[in-house]
């Protein structure tokens, strides 16, 4: 067999072996995870970070999550153990993806990111105590209203 064919064969074997190692490890490689993988990571002791704003966090968050807004993540992650298992989420996944890239670039080795964010999460959510008002209100305005709730981010 020619030298080139040996190299190709060796690379193929290495690739297949790598795939088996990952599958056998039982856990996701650092990167995007789904809800089930997120829950397993949390059970395994991962530090769960909600990178939305404080107001968004107060409206509702995944139980056990710490709120570290994306705007403060760089500063607050100084001194963290870079080998720590970290899983991130935000509202829909864009901020947490940016947060994951930031932490990985700073040397954090095991950073995972919940795909779709809390919007796609179908597990329990801790929210604020609801305002005690009846669901039906007397007429408050002369016309109907559409509220758009948003944040500065």
């Amino acid at each position, binding site marked *: 067999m020619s030298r080139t064919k040996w190299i190709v064969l060796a690379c193929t074997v290495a690739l297949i072996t790598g795939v088996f190692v990952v599958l056998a490890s039982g856990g996701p490689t650092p990167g995007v995870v789904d809800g089930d993988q997120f829950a397993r990571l949390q059970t395994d002791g991962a530090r769960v970070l909600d990178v939305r704003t404080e*107001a*968004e966090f107060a*409206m*509702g968050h995944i139980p056990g999550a710490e709120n570290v807004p994306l705007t403060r993540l760089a500063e607050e992650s100084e001194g963290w153990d870079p080998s720590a298992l970290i899983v991130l989420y935000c509202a829909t996944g864009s901020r947490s993806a940016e947060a994951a890239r930031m932490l990985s670039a700073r040397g954090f080795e095991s950073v995972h990111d919940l795909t779709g964010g809390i*919007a796609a999460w179908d597990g329990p959510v801790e929210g604020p105590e609801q305002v005690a*008002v009846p669901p039906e209100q007397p*007429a408050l305005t002369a016309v109907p209203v559409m509220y758009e*709730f*948003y*944040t500065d981010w």
Partner: protein
Amino acid sequence: MVDRLEKEYEGTVDILKMNVDAGGEAASLASRYRVQYVPTFVFVNADGTTADTIVGEAKESDLRDALDGLR
């Protein structure tokens, strides 16, 4: 898009933007309507009843359908 709708529905529907980071009334209303993440659009009839809620980025057609359903 919302700015355009605001102009089109002026006089028919009040379209109000609520920045939840600002606290105050926005936070109070977010709690009342059980808003858990943003953006969320809440449609309230003139009698105060909630007609519809759209969570996340919304298509203009969906917003229009909800606006047209208000009474």
